[in-house]
């Protein structure tokens, strides 16, 4: 069961916010891999309640890419008018469930009907590196020197906006403590700034359950929030913070699922309380 909700601006502020129907999806599925052309990577989709969904959420999160031989937990909010892989797109997260499930092994061969996009535009006449290819003709060693131009990447990493320089929110896959690459970069920056200050960095770690559309509740295992906090503490110390600077708070109970972005409850909030603040 999908969850169509209408969010209304409750504060009745002076800015009028139009009501919009939003569709939330929360389900576990076997991904099907679709070949979308000889020169591009595969994509993944699933059919669910009469709709087809692209199983890679909008944005770049490097821990949720679907895997055959595993079921996938899908949590998100459908993005209207965006499709890929023959399916509707969504904002949210996916988690590869750890148990091996050999039933999840469906391939859809390339059929010319759905053609994928190049992650990197490889056209030799692309204006950004046409000159490089020209240079290679007279000096082949250019081909083994560092790239002199930035490569034209089709889809840049989207930064989330719910953090500022003194607060960082880190989201996690279901029942895992793995962070993503974008967050890792943010942590480096966060620590670089905080380690020169004697102020505290507070780690607040949470774990949560997910309410699926079929009313089933998936609860994270006991101790998950503590495990995340321990890992985060190790990363922060490894990047240069002193243990004395860190204060850790762990919420041991699962935050109940509501079926609306439950993935956002699987998080760590990092707050840097600067000494001069």
């Amino acid at each position, binding site marked *: 069961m999908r969850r169509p909700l209408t969010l209304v601006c409750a504060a009745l502020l002076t800015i009028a916010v139009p009501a919009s129907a939003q569709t939330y999806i929360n389900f576990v599925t076997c991904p099907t891999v679709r070949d979308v052309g000889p020169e591009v990577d595969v994509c993944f989709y699933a059919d669910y309640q009469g709709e087809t969904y692209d199983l890679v959420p909008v944005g770049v999160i490097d821990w949720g890419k679907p895997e*055959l031989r595993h079921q996938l937990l899908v949590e998100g909010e459908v993005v209207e008018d965006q499709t890929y892989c023959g399916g509707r797109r969504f904002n949210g997260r996916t988690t590869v469930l750890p148990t091996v499930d050999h039933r999840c092994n469906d391939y859809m061969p390339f059929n010319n009907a759905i053609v994928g996009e190049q992650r990197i535009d490889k056209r030799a006449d692309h204006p950004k590196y046409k000159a490089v290819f020209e240079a*290679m003709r007279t000096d082949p060693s250019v*081909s083994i*020197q560092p790239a002199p131009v930035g490569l034209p990447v089709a889809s840049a990493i989207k930064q989330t906006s719910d953090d500022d320089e003194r607060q960082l929110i880190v989201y996690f896959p279901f029942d895992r403590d*793995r962070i*993503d690459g974008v967050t*890792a970069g943010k942590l480096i920056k966060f620590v670089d700034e905080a380690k020169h200050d004697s102020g505290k960095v507070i780690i607040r770690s949470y774990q949560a359950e997910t309410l699926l559309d079929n009313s089933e509740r998936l609860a994270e295992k006991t101790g998950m929030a503590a495990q995340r906090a321990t890992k985060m503490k190790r990363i922060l110390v490894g990047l240069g913070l002193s243990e004395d600077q860190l204060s850790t708070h762990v919420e041991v109970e699962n935050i109940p699922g509501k079926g609306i972005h439950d993935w956002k409850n699987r998080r760590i909030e990092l707050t840097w309380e600067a000494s001069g603040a």
Partner: protein
Amino acid sequence: MEVTRLGRVTALLTGILAATLSHVHASEVQQPSAPDYSTAATDDWWSPDTTATFPAYAEYANTAGRIGIINTGGEIDTRNHPFFAVIGSNGRACVTCHQPSDGMSLSLETIRERWAATLGKDPLFDAFDGADCPDKPAGEESSHSLLLNHGLIRIGMPWPPAPYAPDPVDVEFDIEVVRDPTGCNLSPTWGINSATPTISVYRRPRPVINIAHMVELPHGVGPHDKFFYADKNLLHTDPETGEFVQGLLMADARGLTPRNQARDAAKNHLGLERPLSESELQAIEQFELQLFGAQSVDAIGGPLDGPGTPPGLGPNAPVNVPRGTLGNNPVNRVFGDFSMWTDGEQSGDEAGAFKASVARGADVFYRKRFYINDVGAYNDKGLGNPFKRSCASGCHNTLGMGMDMGPFPMDLGTGTYPWQNTRDDLPLFKVTCRPDAIPHSYLGPVVYTHDPGRALITGRCRDIGAIMTQQMRALSARAPYFSNGSAATLQELVDFYDRRFNIGYSDQEKTDLINFMRTL
């Protein structure tokens, strides 16, 4: 850019000059100033404690042509040098298993020649790790079957795993010896039930050239100069300096730095009871970081270095190629541009046809995509399963070297059921994971393997069978391939991948790929 190009030319000239002035091996013209190789000149074997100068540049013959080894530090006197001197109890030195003629590794051909020349008396065949098990009868070929047939050295790993990182190891699995053809894993003295429980696995010596590339942290792919790509844990740190390190040196990534690796090897392969001294460690590290090598001449294609040759070939290339740089994009390809050889067939001669084949092989390596699937500790690191890439844009993406820029041992299946080449001569282990452990991502909680690999270090089920990818240089000098020597030739290596990933290479593509790889 200008400085870098100038540097390449300078180094090229240096290399040529060095080749002209210093010792060139037996098959080459002897220079008047050539050092005395009297104890090592009858063949390419470099014996420990040889009184000789290790030259700034030397070439050594192999079946595909010649390999060139550049020592950027200039020639060194090897007397009492800890890489060349017998410092342990078994008569070996580092050079025993890291021979210049073999790309500083050890080819099966060399091992067999050494057996024949010494009737098995060479310290290489020391029973502790040069035999299938130390308790095998001395002097019999059958006691050394894995070394003589596949170039494998016995590695005794403590069971349960000993911590190599500061944290204790939480072992997530139990291990059972299903088959023990060497008798070592069930030996009451040497096996898993002995007083010092040990699991014996059998691995190839890795090449000690281009180490400067192997220890370089990746550039331009932040945050992965601090974080593992695979699991976004922080990279390991050098216990001596506290700096982040790559860990590419050993098959199971246990020796994080040249110094770590040297300590491990001195203890476990040289029979050295004492710790290596600081001066010994410095000498070994310095020597290893200044060694570069690649095939220099192809028997058919001719010289691989110099004008008109692909810039990624020849021994000067590893000296000059930027280190720790991603080479999987349209501008930087792993081994550079081969277009100058594309039309080689128009020359009408064998060399031209060979060069055209190499150029086609490079193109297959760079461009031909296939499904990379069910690779433990690889597809599960966020790439998806399957992941559709070419050789170069998948696992062999480091500029100039061809190892993985996001290094992490992975289970390709070279030693794990059901993918491995059938090997009745290796031990077979049944690894069973605890119910609460995250299992091997594609084989589940029970895995049959000839080598648990990285899991014998971390204790993690997800690391079962995981072996670190290898640089692709000097392939012609150091057959057989894969950590367990299961590919006797480059043909067998390509055939394994073709079968493993259902690539569907044509015979011509296979030939071209092999020709390409033999020039590296």
